[in-house]
């Protein structure tokens, strides 16, 4: 290819990339900058925003309920890593080498097709007072079941389980892809050396799965930090604010109280936490790849 052809090719490439870049800039980065600006203002969605400096951030950290939301959000992060990621890995390990394993994973994948708010409604029907679960428990003689959605932190725990019901299948699928991409030779060699079960997993499978595990866990952290739809569908953050997450606090301050400045401050805080957590985690995990 001549120098001129190469330049022409690069120009056309830039031209094709430009629409995507423009759309991302207009639909993603411009709102991000606008939200950051709003977080330094007092604004009710009408008229013009008034610059108040760091006042919204001060108000945010002075509110004890904010730390309740932060605590619930961290519980979501921990719970999501333990339950759907853990179960997904377990399911993948149990089924990947089995003939017809796909049919065992399929039922777990189906809930992934349902929207978060739909999952919330289904589980709300099951877990509400005198709901489907309480009625089932009454049939086996449990007359005073736990108040699933009314007591904290039980309500957050059962919502994490409801979320796991949706997320296990896709995690299992991702882990299965990772397991299938592991070369056969080291696995066979390990098996010839007598490695089985936990030994095979700990010495061969887990280290070789690390790049994929890093991505799955990274995605789970990001998803759980912005948990909104399932909580909105099941408890609306209540009773009171007992099961509220940061995303819900942001939504309430912005769209219920019309305090766009405070809502934006929480959005910026949430964005920073998510970015820092993702970058730190992925950098740390992916750098280990070279150690294998």
């Amino acid at each position: 290819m001549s120098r001129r052809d190469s330049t022409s090719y690069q120009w056309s490439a830039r031209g094709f990339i430009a629409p995507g870049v423009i759309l991302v800039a207009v639909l993603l980065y411009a709102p991000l900058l606008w939200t950051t600006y709003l977080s330094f203002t007092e604004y009710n969605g009408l008229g013009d925003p008034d610059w108040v400096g760091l006042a919204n951030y001060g108000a945010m950290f002075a509110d004890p309920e904010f730390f309740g939301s932060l605590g619930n959000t961290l519980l979501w992060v921990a719970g999501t890593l333990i339950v759907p990621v853990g179960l997904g890995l377990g399911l993948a390990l149990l089924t990947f080498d089995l003939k017809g394993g796909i049919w065992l994973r399929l039922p777990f994948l189906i809930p992934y097709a349902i929207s978060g708010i739909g999952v919330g409604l289904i589980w709300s029907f099951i877990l509400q007072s005198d709901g489907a679960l309480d009625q089932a428990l009454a049939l086996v003689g449990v007359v005073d079941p736990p108040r699933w959605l009314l007591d904290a932190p039980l309500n957050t725990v059962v919502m994490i389980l409801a979320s796991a019901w949706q997320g296990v299948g896709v995690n299992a699928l991702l882990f299965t892809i990772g397991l299938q991409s592991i070369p056969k030779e080291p696995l066979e060699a390990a098996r010839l050396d007598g490695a089985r079960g936990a030994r095979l997993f700990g010495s061969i499978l887990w280290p070789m799965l690390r790049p994929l595990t890093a991505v799955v866990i990274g995605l789970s952290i990001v998803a759980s930090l912005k948990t909104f739809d399932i909580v909105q569908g099941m408890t609306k953050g209540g009773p009171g604010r007992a099961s509220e997450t940061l995303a819900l606090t942001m939504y309430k301050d912005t769209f219920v109280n019309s305090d766009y400045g405070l809502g934006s401050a929480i959005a910026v805080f949430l964005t920073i936490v998510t970015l820092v957590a993702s970058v730190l985690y992925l950098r740390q995990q992916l750098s280990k790849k070279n150690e294998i």
Partner: protein
Amino acid sequence: MKSTPRRMGVLATVSVAALALTACSGGGGDSTDGATTGTLNFYTDKAAWEPDFDTLSETSSGDVDIELNTTGYSDANQYDAFIRQSFRTNKSPGLFSWHTGSSLKELVDENLVAETTDIWTKAIDDGYVSEDLKKYYTIDGKQYCVPMNIAYWIMYYNKAIFDENGLDKPTTWEELMDDAATLKANGVTPFYQTSVLFTFPWFQQLVAGTDPELYNGLSTGEVKYTDPRIVDIMNVWLDQQKQGWFSDAGSTTDPAVMLKQGDMAMINFGSFFGASLDAAGMTQGTDYDFFVIPAVDASVTPNPVAVETGPLCTAENSPQRDLGMAFAEWWMSPEAQTAWSDARGDVPFNPKATVANESLSELGTSVATDDQLVERYFEATPTPILTVALEQFGAFNANPGDPLPFLQKIQDAADAYWADQN
């Protein structure tokens, strides 16, 4: 044709930019500047009422040649955000539903809604609307918007349950309490409650029924939520909670279905609730009925009744401003209110309108002559305080206990709000 890829790339970029610009320009194709007849774009958060508005549109088409093109939102918060943002565009609505109280004042303070003082003056002169209602639409001596609806917060009850337990409509607070005790003793939960959104009616009833001045003082900031009188009232509520008089706050079943199933015998709701009960398959007078809740303190006269009224507004800068104002003027008429009452099965605000439902007609007349109206807690309370109050009443319903911590949280929000206003 070496430059073709480059040209294609540039073309792709320009096309996207052109599309984006077209999308941002808004077009303004449906502008009807100055027209007082035609199709009026109407936005509302009452999505469930859309068929009723369509029915109404047939009458308005015939009467004043204005047809409603209704867009209903089912999420109130999403709707509020949409309306707020619409004022920044050339698409601000010719007609939209809103809220009275601090929400309306916010719009008026920014000169965003059209003044309706002339429409109100004429309607009051014609006897189309009571002077009482005007205060909810008055800001700094001028009127804005017109009332979309009016609803009285009353007690609906399951007639079969009352009959089975030998109960009749109570006429005093003591009788109501005796009825509740009888129902509980017979294994029936007397009252409905929830932990989400409609958590305030019983608080509203207890405070307004004990002392309307105290109730009004909460909405102006003159009375604190931690006032010993409010704490005493909350303790009355707590006693009732302990006696098991309320349905499980964790149920998300439709309250109309719950009343039909007999999950509770009574529910304190707005007079529009009859339409939900009808939709659930109950018949008024046979399966359910309603009564005005008597004052807690019998010496409080006239009897306080919470009233809810939601406005229909026109944006000042809307291309359909004149059309919206023409509709608003017609909306006050007996013909419009008769059509609305027929469509919704609710009380019209115009006393000259014909009400097909005899019980609702009697309710409208009796409230107007025998009772005093207090503004519904939802509209009477500034939004930042209301949000916390609804959460705290919900938490109290879910886990009844010492009322002071709940009240303190509401008062903290009230202190922050009123400090910001001064």
